[in-house]
């Protein structure tokens, strides 16, 4: 019976996310919209902690760890958000976005570890024998997108507070594309790899994704940073949605995809407000002739 209450919590949360986002997009209701979404999030979190049951009907344990982490995170979050200067708001958003990306990536890494260990126990020769392709896709997409978002957001944060300079070198765009292709290839190799090596390939995938995230943001100029942060924001949304697939959790899926879609549109709108195209922002700083981006 308790499980049904959790389902209702998630439905309520999903509705508050939609309504909250809607209210945030109009000046008169924006502040209330933020509170509505926050209330929904609170319900979803509390509901998950106390009512969640896994497939075998077992409740969660490790409560001490969970509460300790929640309290540490909440204290740091409130202090950081309250202390930040008004002018430094966008970099703060970027920082928090990076945290969300890292969170999504870590979830996927742990989930990979479970699948990997299960396959090891069953003595599978190839990693792919132990996992459904769709499940692996959700794991690997979550870890790649989350890592890119984390690394990119951290660079954006560092650039806005002045600790990173724009770095531009020759053929940067080509190198970035190659690295991105490398991430995809490694992700595919992991799936088909001999099980004993699958974890190494997976770790390499994540590391290369982190490198890609850094290189992706490095050349972009400071004035364009809000656009990039918005883009990374929508990436994290998608990464969160991958987590929703992993746990069959509709609140995560709704929130993640909603932000992914709204964030992408918002990115385009921000570009338009600056009279530029997204491609222009992403490759503009080094004036390349390439049109992909």
């Amino acid at each position, binding site marked *: 019976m308790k499980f049904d209450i959790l389902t209702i919590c998630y439905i309520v949360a999903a509705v508050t996310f939609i309504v909250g*986002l809607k209210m945030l997009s109009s000046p008169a209701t924006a502040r209330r919209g933020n509170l509505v979404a926050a209330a929904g999030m609170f319900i979803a979190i509390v509901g998950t902690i106390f009512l969640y049951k896994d497939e075998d009907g077992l409740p969660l344990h490790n409560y001490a760890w969970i509460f300790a982490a929640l309290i540490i995170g909440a204290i740091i979050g409130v202090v950081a*958000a309250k202390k930040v200067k008004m002018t430094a708001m966008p970099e703060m958003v970027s920082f928090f976005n990076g945290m*969300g990306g890292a969170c999504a990536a870590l979830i996927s890494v742990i989930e990979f570890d479970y699948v990997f260990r299960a396959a090891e126990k069953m003595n599978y020769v190839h990693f792919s024998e132990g996992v459904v392709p769709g499940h692996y896709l959700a794991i690997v997409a979550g870890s790649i997108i989350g890592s890119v978002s984390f690394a990119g957001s951290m660079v954006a944060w560092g650039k806005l507070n002045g600790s990173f300079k724009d770095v531009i070198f020759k053929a940067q765009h080509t190198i970035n594309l190659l690295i991105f292709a490398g991430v995809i290839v490694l992700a595919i190799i992991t799936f088909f790899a001999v099980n004993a090596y699958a974890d190494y390939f997976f770790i390499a995938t994540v590391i290369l994704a982190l490198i890609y995230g850094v290189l992706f943001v490095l050349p972009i100029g400071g004035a364009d940073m809000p656009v990039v942060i918005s883009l990374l924001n929508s990436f*994290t949304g998608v990464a969160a949605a991958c987590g929703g697939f992993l746990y069959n959790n509709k609140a995560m899926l709704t929130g993640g995809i909603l*932000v992914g879609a709204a964030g*992408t549109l918002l990115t385009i709108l921000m570009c338009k407000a600056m009279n530029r195209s997204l491609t222009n922002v992403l490759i503009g700083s080094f004036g390349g002739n390439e049109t992909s981006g």
Partner: protein
Amino acid sequence: MEATLQWISANQQMIYIVILMIFLGIEIIGRVPSVLHTPLMSGANAIHGVVIIGAIIVMGRASEHNYLALILGFLAVILGTLNVVGGFVVTDRMLEMFKKKK
């Protein structure tokens, strides 16, 4: 191939949600005035902090001897909380500033 198709039918509700949310997300912020771009971005940032639910589940299901999952899960919950709490507080501060200006 068969496994993929099976996965699709097993997750069809999820796939419907994905498709509908893509359109809804685009639809509901379509007419946002440009002054609200940054607060909206910040608010959306806080909403994707819902990923913390996944972190809590990971943490709560980890066995006591699986230190990798415990440590990474602990870290994930901290980072997720930062995202949620910080995101909403920062958004609120931004919007508070908007009110004072008027």
